[in-house]
């Protein structure tokens, strides 16, 4: 346990080192937050209460998206490129000999990364959004806490998906194609472009049942108080269910993959 805590701290520090990159990220998140806000204002002016949100809630949704963009790796870019590279070059063989579990190791590192990204790239855009627009921010501490739990579960689901993608490199050799497909799916089905509540009909129902909705849609709805009491537990159960299923699949795939590893000499 102490080992994984150290790995997580390392993941945090590693991203904290690049201050300029963090500032550039904050700037980008803020710019896109403004663009998104204005389009949502126009949309909600036409159709008030679209997707069950009033306008301040819709705007809050935009800024939550920007806040979680880096933390939940909604547009990809976390550890997966590195793991794919290690599988491609064969360095993975060394990792497998380490007295630590491969999946837990990367999970710890990714949680550290996500914690930094949430603080480093999340707080300022949210604050700017709250100053510039009329947001529906919860008044008491409780929804914020509930939100943090949902975000944590979302990060774990996000990790589990990206771990599966990275492991595919054992079979595909080049994971770039799979990574890109995963990135596309997550950009669209997390609700980053448009809340999943606004997706019409059966398509919307399917989108809301997919694991990606655990990354942004569920945490946003928890923040906006859409899930209360039993509903909140149900939302958590939905996220945790996907987390367990996907982590389990990752574990099975990892077992199958390790059998395939052939260490080349030279």
């Amino acid at each position, binding site marked *: 346990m102490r080992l994984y805590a150290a790995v997580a701290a390392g993941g945090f520090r590693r991203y904290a080192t*690049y201050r*300029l*990159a963090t500032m*550039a*990220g904050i*700037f*980008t998140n803020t*710019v*896109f937050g*403004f*663009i998104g806000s*204005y*389009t949502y*204002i*126009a*949309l909600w002016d*036409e*159709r008030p209460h*679209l997707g069950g949100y009033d306008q301040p809630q819709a705007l809050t949704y935009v800024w939550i998206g920007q806040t979680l963009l880096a933390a939940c790796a909604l547009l990809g870019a976390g550890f997966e490129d590195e793991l794919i590279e290690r599988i491609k070059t064969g360095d993975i063989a060394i990792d497998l000999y380490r007295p630590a579990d491969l999946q837990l190791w990367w999970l710890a590192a990714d949680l550290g990364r996500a914690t930094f990204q949430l603080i480093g790239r999340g707080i300022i855009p949210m604050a700017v959004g709250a100053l510039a627009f009329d947001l529906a921010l919860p008044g008491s501490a409780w929804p914020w806490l509930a939100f943090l739990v949902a975000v944590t579960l979302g990060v774990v689901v996000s990790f589990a998906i990206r771990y599966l993608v990275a492991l595919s490199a054992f079979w595909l050799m*080049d994971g*770039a*194609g799979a990574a*890109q*497909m995963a*990135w*596309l799916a997550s*950009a*669209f089905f997390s609700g980053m*472009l*448009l809340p999943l509540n*606004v*997706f*019409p009909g059966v398509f919307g129902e399917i989108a809301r049942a997919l694991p990606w909705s655990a990354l942004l849609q569920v945490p946003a709805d928890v923040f906006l108080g859409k899930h209360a009491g039993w509903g909140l537990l149900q939302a958590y159960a939905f996220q945790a269910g996907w987390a367990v299923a996907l982590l389990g699949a990752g574990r099975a795939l990892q077992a199958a993959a390790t059998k395939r590893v052939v260490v080349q000499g030279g």
Partner: protein
Amino acid sequence: MIVAMWVRSTMTYRASFALTAFGNFVATAFDFVAILLMFSHIDALGGYTLGEIAFLYGTTSTSFGLADLAMGSMNRLGRRVRDGTLDTLLVRPAPVLAQVAADRFGLRRLGRVTQGLLVLGYALVVADIDWTPLKVLMLPVMLLSGAGIYASLYVAGAAFQFVAQDASEVQNSFTYGGNTLLQYPPSIFAQDLVRGVTFVLPLAFVNWLPALYVLDREDPLGLPDWLAFLPPVVAVVCCGLAALAWRAGLRSYRSTGS
């Protein structure tokens, strides 16, 4: 020649090329799918119909796609400055700018241009445009001028990276952010933002001003009509300024010495 080399190298893995080109196509298409989903609930956004928004979307995406095809590799300059590999380019007998632009030239970026042109084609069919010869002529001119303006943003951003070393994200917020902004009608944004995009960053000349003319729309800032004919001039001025910035940046370059 460097471009041809990178094209040949990507063509070695045809399946991977097809997949990534398709991926680029889908990635950009999702933006438009989001707009289509919005229009499943509404008839007009900021007073603009789907066809008109598709026109805005198609023009900016095509221009941006062309610029990205030519200059998208500029993002990598920061990394080259940091690890010192820019030196290799400096000693070669070819313009550094051309080399950086051709660096890892990605033909897969054609996916973005294709998608932009498809949406534009859709817009031309659906949108109710009162065509005149001048408007027909305006279309290719605005696409090319727009590409020029975006390209100069890429070059200026790259010049800035000589100083900042790692700021490709800031550059992205101007290029990708500008592209996203111009996909929507100016009427939905705050006036100050529109003013900034028109006069500070001349992005509005990529499509807003000429498109408002083609679509017979009022400019929310009440600017005169003749501004719609300025994009080529603006593009030339921007390219000139970007070239100056690039030269200043390159002169200030000090190798890492490692």
